[in-house]
């Protein structure tokens, strides 16, 4: 008996490693927008004002959290949502595993996409950041750097940061020579500057980037050797700040701003070590930032012991009784919990039956926090493997 306990303990210790990379990085997180529309989520939830107003607008600068945190938000408001479906006579959608991943990935991604800018703020920033000490616009400013009018057609703010990044070493040198303060970027600075500059473009040309592809970004992160200094996970890194120590729950331009702001330090270090400056083309910067942004998507491994206890406390076990004696199937024999996505998909799809049962028994809907979700998943995963 003692041996068995020991083995179980060891198993619990190693099991977190089995969860690594359980959620595949999406190559097109926008694919979930199709699910969002086709499944009619948009009829109740708007995205920045586009859509219904029955549920909350999903894009108000809010970072919802990891996959299971988002899943817990959805889970907890299922009864409210189902009441609306019945009231509005809208068919409740079911999801496939892929649809569930795409939908949650899409909602997660919204923060990355950013917000529109303000022309008046952009004008102010251009003047206060000292941009016109080197660049010209509307005949104002100096001709040290390129005329802003030439780059006004680059409509994506991230293009602007990418261009700045690529000529960062030259720019930093000139800034030093001119005795200027290094211009840092925060919040929506670069978005505001871009929309202001956009006013000066002629014709209809507008060059845009595609929203970032985290899969490409991961590859680029290695290829551009970012990984040599910055570890994406908790392992120790040689030089740079660990990425886990940086708040990356921000929009693409905010993260780009962080990169830009740390570039003088980085340049100094690279000079010492004779490392060449990494430059970006096409969509590369957007992709790398999408990768960084998605580092927070996958959840930390949960605790299966706690999960078992939550499974009991929340009353799941009352229906999903071991040996199939309860109202609902015995989850331990289902062998369906290969990924958290699968678990959430099953939970969503079976919710109406569960709701009816709970209502009949005069019980409360079992609300779950992110951590509880993580723990339950760890527990179900464990029992599935055990079986």
């Amino acid at each position: 008996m003692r041996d068995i306990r020991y083995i179980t303990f060891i198993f619990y210790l190693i099991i977190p490693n089995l969860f690594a990379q359980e959620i595949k990085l999406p190559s097109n997180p926008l694919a979930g927008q199709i699910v969002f529309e086709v499944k009619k989520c948009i009829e109740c939830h708007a995205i920045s004002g586009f859509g219904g107003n029955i549920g909350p607008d999903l894009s108000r600068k809010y970072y919802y959290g990891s996959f299971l945190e988002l899943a817990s938000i959805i889970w907890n408001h299922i009864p409210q949502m189902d009441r609306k479906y019945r009231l509005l006579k809208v068919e409740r959608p079911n999801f496939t595993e892929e649809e569930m991943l795409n939908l949650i990935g899409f909602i997660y991604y919204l923060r990355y996409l950013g917000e529109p800018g303000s022309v008046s703020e952009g004008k102010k920033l251009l003047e206060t950041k000292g941009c016109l000490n080197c660049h010209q616009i509307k005949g104002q400013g100096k001709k040290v750097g390129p005329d802003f009018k030439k780059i006004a057609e680059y409509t994506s703010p991230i293009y602007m940061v990418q261009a700045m990044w690529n000529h960062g070493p030259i720019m930093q040198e000139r800034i030093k020579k001119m005795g200027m303060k290094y211009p840092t970027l925060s919040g929506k600075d670069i978005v505001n500057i871009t929309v202001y500059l956009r006013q000066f473009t002629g014709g209809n040309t507008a060059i845009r980037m595609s929203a970032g592809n985290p899969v490409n970004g991961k590859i680029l992160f290695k290829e551009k050797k970012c990984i040599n200094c910055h570890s994406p996970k908790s392992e120790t890194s040689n030089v740079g700040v660990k990425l886990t120590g940086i708040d990356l729950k921000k929009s693409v331009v905010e993260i780009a701003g962080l990169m830009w702001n740390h570039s003088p330090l980085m340049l100094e270090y690279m000079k010492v070590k004779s490392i060449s400056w990494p430059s970006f083309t096409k969509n590369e910067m957007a992709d790398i930032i999408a990768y960084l942004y998605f580092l927070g998507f996958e959840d930390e491994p949960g605790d299966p012991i706690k999960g078992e206890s939550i499974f009991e406390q929340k009353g799941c076990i009352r229906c999903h009784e071991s040996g199939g004696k309860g109202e609902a199937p015995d989850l331990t024999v289902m062998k369906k919990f290969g990924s958290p996505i699968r678990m959430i998909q099953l939970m969503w799809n079976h919710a109406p039956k569960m709701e009816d049962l709970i209502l009949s028994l005069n019980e409360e809907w079992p609300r779950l926090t992110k951590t509880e979700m993580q723990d339950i998943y760890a527990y179900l995963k464990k029992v599935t493997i055990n079986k």
Partner: protein
Amino acid sequence: MEISRRDFIKLVGGVSGAIAAGSYGLNQIIDIPEKLVEKLKNGHRIESWKSTICGLCPGGCGIRVRLINDVPVGLKGNQYYPINQGGMCPTGHAALQQLYNPDRVKGPLKRIGLQKSGKWKSISWDDALSTISKKLIELRKDGKSHQTVFLGYDEHGLMKEHISRFMKAYGSPNYFQTSHAQNNSIPFIFTQGHGLRPTYDILNTKLILSFGANFLEEGFSPIYYTKLFSHFKEAAKEREAKFIYIDSRMSLSGANADRWIPIMPGTFGALALGIAFVLIREELFDKEFIKNHSFGFEDWKDNSGNKHLGFKNLVLSDYYPEKVSSITNVPSKTILEIARDLGNIRPSLVLGDQGAVNNTNGTYTQMAIHSLNALLGNFEKEGGLYFIDKPSYDKFPPVKEDSIAKIGNQRIPVSKLTDGFSPIFDFSFEIFTKNILSDQPYPIEVLFIKGNPLFQSLYQHELAEAIKKIPLVISFDSFINETNEYANYILPDHTFLEKWDESSNIPTVGFNHFGIQQPVVEPLFDTRHTGDVLIDIAKRINGTVALAFPFESYKDEIHNVVENIYKSGEGAIASEGVEGVWLEYLQQRGWQIGRYASLDEFWNLLLEKGGWWNPIKKKKLSSEIFKTPSGKFEFYSQILKDKLDSLNKNAEKNKSTKETESLLVKLNFSAKGDTIFLPHHENVLYEDNFPLILITYQLLTNRNGESSNLPLMQEMFGYTMRQYWDSWVEINPVIAAEKGITDGNWVWIESSVGTIKARAKLFPGIIPSAVGIPFGLGHTSYGRYAKGFGVNPTSIIKNHYDLISGLPALHATKVKISLAT
């Protein structure tokens, strides 16, 4: 499994075949090449779908074609394509009957008998193109390249540019399009400074006032507007929106209106101005717009200090309701009601087209109607009207002209009068025909022709004589028709299901779009794409003519355009979940929606989904909306004044002593002074003493007569009147009773041009002083399903044109009717 030809016919005919079979028997409906039957016999019954764009009308609907063993057997609307969103008109459903039509020209033909003799022989493409190229090379050598004419029909987008490039590089200024739709932008040029047709925000308006605009049936894209209108009707229940339709005849749009207001033909402009009178008198107009964005509303002084009449005082003095009522037969009370509704229910929207503008005074009428939108301040406003941005992608580099082409292109086009005075419009059959018959300004040696003007136009007899006179006539049509019976060669194009093409930015559609037409089946016969034929001829001519076509094929040209769209980063492939609002969300943040890894991926996705679109409207400054000399909406058209002044100067250059007044008389203007340049009502001059005005109109089932060879369309031709395979004449029951005519009687309809016979249809939806005959039937050629069915009303219409735009005045002929015994 053994499949007989009969089985296959059943399969592809489906519903359509079954309907038509009722009249003609299965084997007559379609003619299937044996190789396709074999494919079905030996295949594994694999079903697949391909996207393309319907080519049976210019509406540009996306369709999905169903194939069994790669053989087209059915089709439906493409639900993702933003124009039709899965919808389709009846004509589209008959597309397979065009593909499998037994009367198709199956390879190049050379006429061996007299014109109209119907005697042809098959020749090879090489022989045909070699002969034609030799003639064209010879003409260029002799400095006569300008003696070549390309008479197109309704080409738009890339095909229009392709032909223009050919003609420009070759050295001829004589490329004209005969479709009416191509020439109706003139009133918009006069008031807006550009000819872009606005798109009407029917979705968000609360009142639609239509002056004869039969947008559900005769507009540029009826299915697009049907979709919009259905949403309007749905929303109308909640917001008490309404649709008022003014026309002499209750069309399909009229029948769907909340109120139909009958009016005398040719008086719509007077009614619009009567409504303007009430809006001005009761101060129901947008004062801010009028003050800041319009020109010529108030009386004004020019730089020399001369005082000019403004729109307001013209309207207030000449268009009070009682007077307008006497012109239009619309009661004063009704005029007040409409105007007050229009002014008080906002946003409200005004449209004008077909019934209102198909007359000698059409340009002024459209100017008057459009002025109402200006009074309401409707430009670039929700529930009003918008202009779609020019696409950001380029198509081709400019054409290089050699010295021969330069000289040729500078010659006066054959469509212009040669007496030093040329009207404002670019093309009219009358001038074109007279010039060719009199070798003015030079004889024509070669005529390329697309379409069937000898069926569709007025002035048919004279035009036939003119075509007869041209030594070399080449037609590109897929069927033998009234016009190409006079041709020397027929170089048959593919049908649209067999060919590459594109359909982009259909006028009045509310967003930038690019639909791709791809072959869903290999060409069934020895036909060739007209675009490729022109490239082939250009290569044979060589030099700068060949250089004008840097691509090997028309398909490559399309691919080049697609590449430019891809590079632009704008818009998105039309697919599920790609709603306009989402595109806007992303574009506001500087993103493009599509994540296309490569051009190949973009191209493949485009083929799969059928099209690309960009619904984002760029916010425009007033100077971008109006390109007039004042940069504003011009009630007083300075462009029209400049045009007339320049015509007068031309006359002086040729030592003419004509003054402006006599010039205007020549254009048949009755107005004098400043009124000429303002929207006003010109009386229609009926030359005959007959009692009834003849109205013609198009039906959704056969808009321009080209669907007459589709049996399903014959079977459905007059579905609203329950009249099939035949024409009819609509007569108001009051007049019918006076004449002793009952429903279904044979009736003679006689004008000073000719007489036709049709069955009477007693119809209270037509005013007592008019009779209506649908256009589309009455072919004397065009295959077994078209020839000999019904009558062609244009054959008895007098050769009248809009005084300014040159468009045919289809409602300016009077007729009498009598019971045929």
